[in-house]
């Protein structure tokens, strides 16, 4: 088993490189500021959030009903619906479809679900050439990395580094960093891949039970290219992506683009209602992979509202400083820190603590997931399962005693303040005292408020 790396250790290198950390912070803050302008331009913004949250609560509560309705309607339109209980099952289904068509080359539009399932590696191990066609995702794929953000997969990479990557893999000029030049090179490279692709795989942003149709939102049009040329389209979706009716969709598309990138609308909102003609196939893979278990949890069920807009990441002050890879999870940031421990509590036990509980994620969330309250609830779960380090556990037990017995509290306080005043600086400010690595300790006063109050107010 891989060693579990705690978030503070995984974040260290990124955050302690001030150039990178500050540039990353500013890039994401720019996106959040655009989101603020767009949200403020709609007088009904809070009403939309409330409506979206209500629709999701209803859909998740009646999920099996809507899934069956979706399957019925999608099948009636000629799509082939598959059910996958977990990641492995999903990958097997996809591979089988590819093998049935004797395909060795696929083009894929960005899909966090296939990332979650580890599809790329699985297919490559089975001799399939996989090309991610989203520009950001293609960049991380060429570098052998994973996306660090669910909407902006290469947000952690500077344009100079993209230039180096393209020079190595696409033969662009050495030292080139002009975004226009690099994008043009990627365009040419991907155009060839699109033409050579035999099957297109896409994610799904929304699936509509009433119609059996699905909707894919991209800014680069890559999902459309990837599905228009090949005759087979495989759409992979988590079972929570469902909406009951066509008329619910507008609520979500208005929220999604504004929350994700601060655009009024995503550039391409493509609707797929069955295969495009009698010579084509549309396969829809409905994936559970732990979602039913999440649905059973009263505390964390609302996390299934998530429409993967990434707004919580853009606003999260911890994410902005530490970078997406520090979470070591497919979905990073606040929502990832809620979702990841539902899969594996031990591996992801430090994520609910990678949060200052500022609550900005909950206020920015377009579907009103109480993210920071869920992260706090996770901490209670982890302590209950004895997954908090013993040192921290004991420190809190000691604090509890201290606060239960005022005389003890006062005595410890007195000793502490005295020590802080008389000890030389080297004895209080050293690397073992984590507070003082970057900060000074407060100056200790001689008198507490209680002492002052006894002298001045008690008679």
């Amino acid at each position: 088993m891989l060693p579990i790396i705690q978030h503070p250790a995984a974040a260290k290198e990124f955050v302690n490189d001030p150039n990178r950390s500050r540039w990353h912070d500013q890039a994401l803050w720019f996106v959040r500021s655009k989101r603020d302008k767009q949200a403020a331009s709609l007088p009904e913004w809070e009403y939309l959030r409330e409506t979206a949250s209500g629709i999701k609560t209803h859909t998740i509560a009646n999920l099996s009903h809507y899934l069956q309705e979706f399957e019925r309607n999608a099948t009636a339109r000629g799509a082939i619906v598959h059910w996958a209980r977990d990641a492995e099952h999903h990958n097997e289904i996809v591979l089988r479809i590819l093998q049935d068509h004797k395909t060795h080359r696929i083009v894929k539009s960005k899909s966090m679900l296939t990332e979650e399932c580890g599809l790329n590696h699985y297919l490559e191990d089975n001799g399939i050439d996989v090309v991610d066609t989203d520009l950001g995702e293609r960049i991380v794929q060429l570098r052998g990395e994973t996306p660090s953000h669910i909407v902006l997969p290469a947000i952690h990479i500077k344009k100079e580094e993209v230039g180096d990557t393209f020079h190595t893999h696409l033969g662009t000029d050495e030292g080139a960093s002009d975004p226009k030049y690099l994008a043009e090179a990627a365009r040419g490279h991907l155009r060839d891949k699109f033409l050579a692709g035999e099957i297109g795989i896409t994610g799904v942003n929304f699936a509509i039970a009433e119609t059996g149709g699905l909707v894919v939102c991209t800014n680069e049009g890559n999902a459309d290219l990837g599905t228009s040329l090949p005759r087979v389209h495989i759409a992979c979706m988590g079972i929570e992506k469902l909406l009951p009716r066509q008329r619910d969709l507008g609520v979500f598309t208005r929220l999604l683009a504004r929350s994700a990138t601060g655009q009024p609308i995503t550039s391409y909102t493509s609707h797929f209602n069955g295969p495009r003609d009698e010579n084509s196939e549309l396969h829809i893979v409905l994936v559970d992979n732990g979602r039913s278990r999440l649905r059973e949890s009263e505390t964390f069920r609302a996390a299934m509202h998530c429409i993967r807009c990434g707004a919580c990441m853009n606003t999260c002050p911890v994410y902005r400083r530490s970078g997406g890879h520090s979470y070591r999870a497919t979905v990073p940031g606040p929502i990832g820190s809620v979702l990841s421990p539902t899969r594996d509590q031990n591996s992801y036990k430090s994520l609910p603590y990678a949060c200052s509980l500022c609550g900005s994620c909950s206020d920015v969330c377009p579907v009103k997931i109480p993210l920071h309250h869920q992260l706090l609830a996770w901490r209670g779960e982890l302590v209950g399962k004895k997954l908090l380090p013993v040192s921290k556990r004991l420190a809190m037990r000691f604090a509890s005693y201290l606060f239960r017995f005022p005389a003890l509290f006062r005595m410890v306080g007195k000793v502490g303040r005295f020590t802080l005043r008389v000890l030389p600086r080297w004895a209080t400010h050293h690397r073992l005292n984590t507070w003082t690595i970057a900060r000074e300790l407060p100056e200790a006063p001689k008198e507490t408020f209680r002492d002052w109050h006894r002298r001045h107010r008690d008679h």
Partner: protein
Amino acid sequence: MTVALFVPCYIDQLYPDVAIATLELLERLGVDVAYPDGQTCCGQPMANTGCEADTAPVARRLVDLFADFEAVVCPSGSCVSMVRNHYGAYFDADDARFQHVTSKTYELCEYLHDVVAVTHLDVKFPHRVSLHQSCHGLRELRLGQSSESMTPRENKVRKLLNLVEGIEWVEPDRPDDCCGFGGTFAVNEADVSAEMGRARIADHCGKGSEVLASADMSCLMHLQGLIRREKNPIQVMHVAQILSGRPLGAT
């Protein structure tokens, strides 16, 4: 008609003047204030770590101590949010003493704005001031409108400070980004925490602020630690100190 003053543990021990200023301010406004002896902490450090069993007895002590007062006033948004929004986990929903304390515990500015309805303060503070809005005050107590939320709310802290003569407001670029304190977060995630704090200080300093004012001393403790280490030309002050007429640099 007596209100209890709740002085958070770290203010009692490290920043007594913030509590003295709070008491003097309330008294000057004609509020009858008692300071119940034996108070310690609201239990937030344990609760935020997830140690619920260690929090429960501390929460019950606090309710016992304050249940017989008309109201509880505390100069910390974070501690008040703990009592108001998180104590439910440690009591029966119909426990009358819990109900009373949880619904009658006020953050200082909230109490002055909503209950006392202060409209006049004979105080001067002729300095360039910027406001550090603590996350819990803003997003859990709704003392103002957070920049993410599109629900307009008037800012109670700012409205009170506007009664002080001579304040020249300085506006940071990011009005309510977290300072990175976060209780035990400041120690568990020390690197990220410090970087978050440095960013806040740079924002306020860069706009020419002389005084970083906040209704939460815990954020200021963290920021002051960074300011002193990096020798930044800015001071921190609790809002209670400014409202009660303390001169520049009282903290």
